[in-house]
C-alpha cells in the first residue's frame, strides 16, 4: 500500500515514521511550491480557503508520484470548513479520473483504521499491535526532536553572526531525522543537535524584536504559505515565536496530549474565554490567548496570518483588533491567498518592523 498525505511544515517526518513502521510505503508530493498552488487552485472551488487549495495540490502530487491510497483528516463536528476537506477533495480527485483508496483519520474512523493496519500486518494482531506501538514511539521521538531543532534554530538565528549557517544546520539535522529509523540513533542525534547549536557564534549587539505569530494553524506552520516568515525575520534579527508548530498541532491539538510549553492549549483557551467564548475551528481561541500572553510578556508586536475568507479568523478579527488596542500592542493582519506574493508581504512587514523599532527606541528614551 502506497500512502500519500498532505504536507504541513515538517509534519511529514513524523507521519512517515509512523506509517512506515506500520508496513506502508509512503509516497509524498514535493514540499508545497508554486506548481502545487497552481494545480490546487485550478481544481478547487473558487471561494474556498487557501489551505484547501494547497493540500488539494499535495494530493494531486501524491497521486502523480504513484500513491494508491490517500489519508485525509476527517470526522468530528466542525463549524469550520476544515471538517469537509477530505470529503470535497475526494470528490474532486475522483471527478478528475483518479482511482485511489481513501482513509479518513478521525475519531469516528478508528475501526476502519485498525482493520487496515491488521491487513497490512498479515492479519496478525500481535504484529499489528507491536508495530503500531513501535511506530507511535518512534514518531513521537522524531516529532519532539523536530520541535527541538525548530526551537533552537529560531532562537539562535536572530543572535547568530551568520544566520545562514543556522538555517543550513536546521536543514541538515531535519534530513538526518527523516533518515534514521531507530530510537537510539535519535537519542544520539539529540545530543549532537544541542552541541551544534551551542557552538554557533552568537552575540550580536542590536536589540532583538520579539514577535508573536498567531492566526490560522496551516498558515502559521507551513513555510510555503507564510513565505518562511520565521526564517526570514530571524535573518533580520527578529525573533518570531509561532503560537503553534507541527509538533504541537499533532500532539496537543489532534491527540489532546498536553505538552509542557510556556502556554498550554487549555490555559490559552481559558485566558481567551472572557473575550471569545468558543473555539470555532481555526485555533481562533488559542490564538487570542497567545495574543494576551504576548502582551503581558513584553513582546513587541503581533503578526496575524489567516487564509482569505477563513471563517473563524474573520469572525475573530475584530476581537484581535480590540485587544491590541486594549493592551497597546501593535498588531498586523495578513489575509493570504494564492495571489499573495513575498514582495508585498515583506514590504508591509518591514514597515511594521520599522514602527516597532521606533516605538521601542522611544520607550528607551
Amino acid at each position, binding site marked *: 500500500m502506497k500512502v500519500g498525505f498532505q504536507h504541513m511544515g515538517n509534519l511529514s517526518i513524523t507521519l512517515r515514521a509512523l506509517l512506515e513502521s506500520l508496513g506502508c510505503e509512503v509516497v509524498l508530493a514535493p514540499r508545497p511550491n508554486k506548481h502545487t498552488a497552481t494545480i490546487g487552485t485550478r481544481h478547487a*472551488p*473558487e*471561494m*474556498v*480557503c487557501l489551505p484547501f487549495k494547497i493540500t488539494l495540490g499535495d494530493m494531486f502530487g501524491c497521486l502523480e508520484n504513484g500513491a494508491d491510497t490517500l489519508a485525509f483528516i476527517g470526522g468530528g*463536528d*466542525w*463549524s*469550520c*470548513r476544515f*471538517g*469537509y476537506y477530505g*470529503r*470535497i477533495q475526494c*470528490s*474532486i480527485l475522483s*471527478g478528475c479520473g483518479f482511482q485511489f483508496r481513501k482513509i479518513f483519520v478521525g475519531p469516528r474512523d478508528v475501526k476502519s483504521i485498525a482493520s487496515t493496519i491488521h491487513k497490512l500486518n498479515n492479519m496478525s494482531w500481535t504484529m499489528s499491535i507491536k508495530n503500531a506501538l513501535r511506530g507511535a514511539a518512534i514518531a513521537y521521538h522524531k516529532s519532539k526532536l523536530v520541535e527541538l531543532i525548530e526551537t533552537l534554530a529560531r532562537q539562535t538565528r536572530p543572535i547568530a553572526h551568520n544566520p545562514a549557517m543556522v538555517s543550513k544546520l536546521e536543514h541538515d539535522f531535519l534530513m538526518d531525522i527523516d533518515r534514521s529509523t531507530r530510537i537510539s540513533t535519535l537519542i544520539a542525534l539529540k545530543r549532537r543537535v544541542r552541541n551544534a547549536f551551542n557552538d554557533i557564534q552568537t552575540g550580536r549587539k542590536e536589540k532583538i524584536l520579539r514577535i508573536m505569530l498567531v492566526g490560522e494553524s496551516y498558515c502559521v506552520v507551513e513555510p510555503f504559505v507564510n513565505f518562511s516568515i520565521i526564517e526570514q525575520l530571524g535573518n533580520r534579527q527578529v525573533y518570531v515565536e509561532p503560537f503553534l508548530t507541527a509538533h504541537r498541532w499533532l500532539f496537543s491539538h489532534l491527540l489532546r496530549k498536553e505538552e509542557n510549553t510556556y502556554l498550554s492549549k487549555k490555559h490559552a483557551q481559558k485566558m481567551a474565554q472572557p*473575550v*471569545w*467564548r*468558543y473555539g*470555532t*475551528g481555526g485555533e*481562533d481561541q488559542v490564538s487570542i490567548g497567545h495574543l494576551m500572553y504576548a502582551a503581558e510578556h513584553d513582546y513587541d508586536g503581533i503578526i496575524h496570518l489567516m487564509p*482569505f*475568507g*477563513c*471563517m*473563524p479568523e*474573520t*469572525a*475573530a*478579527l*475584530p*476581537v*484581535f*483588533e*480590540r485587544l491590541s488596542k486594549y493592551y497597546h500592542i501593535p498588531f498586523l493582519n495578513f*489575509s493570504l491567498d494564492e495571489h499573495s506574493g513575498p514582495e508585498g508581504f515583506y514590504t508591509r512587514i518591514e514597515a511594521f518592523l520599522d514602527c516597532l523599532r521606533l516605538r521601542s527606541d522611544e520607550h528607551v528614551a
Partner: protein
Amino acid sequence: MSAVIGIPQALAFYYCHTMWRTFFSELGCQVITSGMTDRSIIQNGAAFVPNEACLPLKCYAGHVMKLCEQHGTPGIDLIFIPRLVCMQTKPAVKLCCPKFIGLPDMIRGLISDVPMLSLDIDLRLRSQEVAFLDLAGRLGCSSHLARCAYDAAENAPREHSDDAVPENAHSTEQIRIALLGHRYLLDDAYLCLNIKKRLCAAGCQVVDHAPDHSPLTNISQTRVQPTSWLFEDEILFAAFRYLHADSIDGIIYLLSFGCGAGSITSEIIEHELRDSSHVPILRIIIDEHTAEAGFQTRLESFIDMIRIKKKQSSIE
C-alpha cells in the same frame, strides 16, 4: 418588567423571530426590531466589519448600530444578540457557522458600549429551555412567568412560505424557479435585491424552501450526506428535492461573498447531489457592491435559456 428590547432584523432573526418575539412579549417586554435593511444600514455596517466578512454580517452590524442610536430613554434598553452554537443534538450534532458562535464577542469588538442582552444556545451543554429561563432570570422575571413565556414561545406558530413543490408537473406555460440560499438572504428584500419580485415580474413562479428546521428524514437517510451545519443542511436537502423534481425548471442559488459554508455546499450540490439531474443551476454571489443592472441581466438571460430549452423539449 417592562424593558424595551431591540432585536436586529438580520441573520438568525429570520430563523427564530416568532419565538423570540413571543418570549419577550410574554415576559412583558416591549420588542422593537430594527426594521428592513436599507442602504445606510449596509454602509454603516460595512465601514466597521472586516472587509472580507460576509454581507449578512455587515448588515447585522448595521442593524445593531441603528438600534444603538435609539438607545437611552425613551428608546431601547437592551439589544438582543444571541450566540447560537449548537441548535440540534439529535440525531446528530448540528452546529452553526462561526459567525453565529462569535457574534456577541464580535459585536463587542466592533462597537463599544452596546447594551447587550446575550443568550448562549448550546444544546450540548444545556437545553434551550434552561437557556431561556436563565435569560428571563437576568431580566428580573419570576420563574413562573418565565416558564409560561417559554411555553408560549415554544408553541408559537412558525411561519411557512409556500415551499411545497407544485403538484402538476406539465403546465408548460409558466417557468418554475426554485430559490436556494440562507433565509437571512432570501427574506431580506434589500440584500437579495428583491429577487422574488424580479422573477415574478419576468413571469416566473417562485418556489422557496421552508424556513423551519423539520428534518426531511426520508430524503436525508437515503441520499444526502449531511454536514454538521444546521442551516446548510436545510439548503442541501432543498437542493436535492428541487434537482429531482420534474416540476422545477431552474434553480437559483444565492450566496453572499465571503460565505465560507457556501463554497462547500455549492461543491456538494454540484458533485454529490446532481446525479442524473439536468435542472440548470445559476449561482449568484452578491456583496455590497452588487449592482441591480448586472443582476437583472443575469436573471433575464437565465430565464431566456430556460424558455428556449422548454420550447425545444416541447417540440420534440
